């Protein structure tokens, strides 16, 4: 029997439910409680005054903390996005985001999961930096997933050793969920390091100087999150493998349209890439 069904949970008293509902709403207001007359009156129904603070002022202590706490948590998770938006832009994003996606799980870790999708329709992104902001948000949420995601079960070394060259060519691969792939207009992986050293970096200027198509794999090895910039062919190869293509199919996709010399060079690189990716744990499963 599932745990939930083994216990009969008590019903919350109606008075408790209603006061908690009222306060949950009041604490999430962006503006001070005292500025809203009807809210002030409701506070006085539920909260006592003392010789220093009115009921609304007491409620407002919690309201301010709600915003500070979640602003800080989001800032920890999205330092690059925050730097790109600047002080005011960041705070208006936090306000709009938390109104749309109030925290609903026990872990602050989950707070930003909707950020990339939210930014797609948010109209406050700084002009000219829209793509950079979206890329930064996607990269930073992936960073969290890679940091503390579950390791896939290790590859069986006996199986790997037993594979013939022919097996390798027709095998398909499941990539580790701890490998995230990006095709970017800006190397936001580098920007993240830049703003970590100096949060006041002029991101617009940085973007002007550093915009370049960037293919990237983000992954975890020995508990540390790494990124690897990939040449376009390597990225396409990895993409094809992720789609379930065999090594030989992936090679022919990437080689398409190449000269014979280039295709031969590609053949040499593939071995290198594949060895490196395997040693970094990119391959979670080999299917024959």
């Amino acid at each position, binding site marked *: 029997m599932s745990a939930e069904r*083994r216990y009969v949970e*008590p019903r919350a*008293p109606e008075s408790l439910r209603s006061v908690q509902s009222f306060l949950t709403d009041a604490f*999430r207001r962006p503006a001070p409680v005292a500025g809203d007359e009807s809210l002030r009156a409701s506070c006085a*129904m539920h909260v006592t005054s003392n010789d220093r603070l009115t009921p609304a002022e007491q409620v407002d*202590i*919690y309201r301010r903390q*709600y915003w500070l706490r979640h602003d800080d948590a989001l800032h920890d998770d999205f330092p690059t996005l925050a730097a790109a938006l600047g002080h005011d832009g960041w705070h208006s994003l936090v306000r709009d985001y938390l109104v749309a996606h*109030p925290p609903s799980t026990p872990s*602050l870790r989950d707070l930003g999961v909707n950020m990339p999708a939210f930014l797609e329709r948010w109209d406050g992104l700084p002009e000219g930096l829209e793509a950079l902001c979206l890329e930064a948000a996607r990269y930073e949420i992936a960073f969290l997933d890679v940091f503390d995601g579950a390791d896939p079960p290790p590859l069986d070394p006996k199986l790997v050793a037993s594979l013939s060259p022919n097996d390798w060519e027709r095998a398909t691969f499941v990539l580790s969920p701890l490998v995230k792939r990006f095709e970017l207009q800006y190397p936001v992986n580098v920007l993240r390091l830049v703003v970590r050293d100096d949060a006041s970096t002029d991101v617009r200027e940085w973007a002007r100087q550093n915009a370049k198509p960037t293919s990237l794999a983000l992954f975890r090895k020995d508990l540390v999150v790494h990124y690897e910039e990939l040449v376009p062919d390597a990225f396409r190869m990895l993409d094809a493998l992720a789609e379930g293509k065999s090594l030989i199919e992936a090679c022919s996709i990437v080689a398409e349209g190449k000269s014979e010399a280039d295709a031969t060079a590609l053949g040499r690189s593939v071995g290198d890439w594949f060895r490196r990716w395997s040693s970094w744990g990119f391959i979670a499963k080999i299917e024959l």
Partner: protein
Amino acid sequence: MTKSPPARLGLPDLGVGLGLRIPHYPHVFEQKPACDWFEIISENFMVDGGRPLANLERALADYRLVQHGVSLSLGSANPLDWQYLKKLKALVAKTKTPWLSDHLCWAGSDCLNLHDLLPLPYTEETVKYVAERARIVQDFLEVRFAIENVSSYLSFTSSRMTEWEFVGAIAEEADVGILLDVNNIYVSSHNHGFDPNAYVDGVPHHRVVQMHLAGHTRFEKYIIDTHTGRVIDDVWALYARAIERCGAVSTLIEWDDDIPSFDEVHAEAKKAIAVRDRVLGAGAARTGAAAGPTTERVA
């Protein structure tokens, strides 16, 4: 003749520990300093993999760990979060925590979680409701559960009893322990104008299985429990009173903001040991304090 109930509900006195915090990891893992025990925030390790779990393994190899949670939301009108409880239970199996604590509070309603430790109205019906939930939590987790008194910045018109009566009634009715946060008593006594000594005197002492000590931040009109800075003298005095009433109880120094060096935080632990020794006599050795690579203080 009725037998008096065992102190600490029969749980060990681990001595004086510290919160295990990231800035101290290099020192703790490499130097392995003497420390009676560490408290971990359960939620920091309720993840699927990666460095947090590796750090947990390292800490477990050398120290006694006790789990303390911040997100259970025991007093919420929301139903219990079984997904959370199952993850918590899995962590208990890993840490072998001798007890597990969380706050006597609520964190949100209508399926939201505001990640705060919000106070409850002190009423009979709340006692009944929360005690029933605490009983379920303790039964499901299969480890002694303890409720911690929170710092609060508002009080309810509907309250009909003191906070210490409320805490005591829930602990008794649910048959759970109390994590007595002495600094929280001080902070709330200032914010709400009650006598902190009456609080310490009024809780069921044999149910106190752990104590917390911390610094706080004083603003013009109220005090906030920021867990920063040293424990102030008034809180040390209150702690001495609590130890006098409850006996030797595992004590934990919380320092979570502007965290200084390990040694500086540990100096607060040493002060707590000195207070315990002064109140109880130096012979009151920490029964469970053998954890840690070495014990620095030999009584």
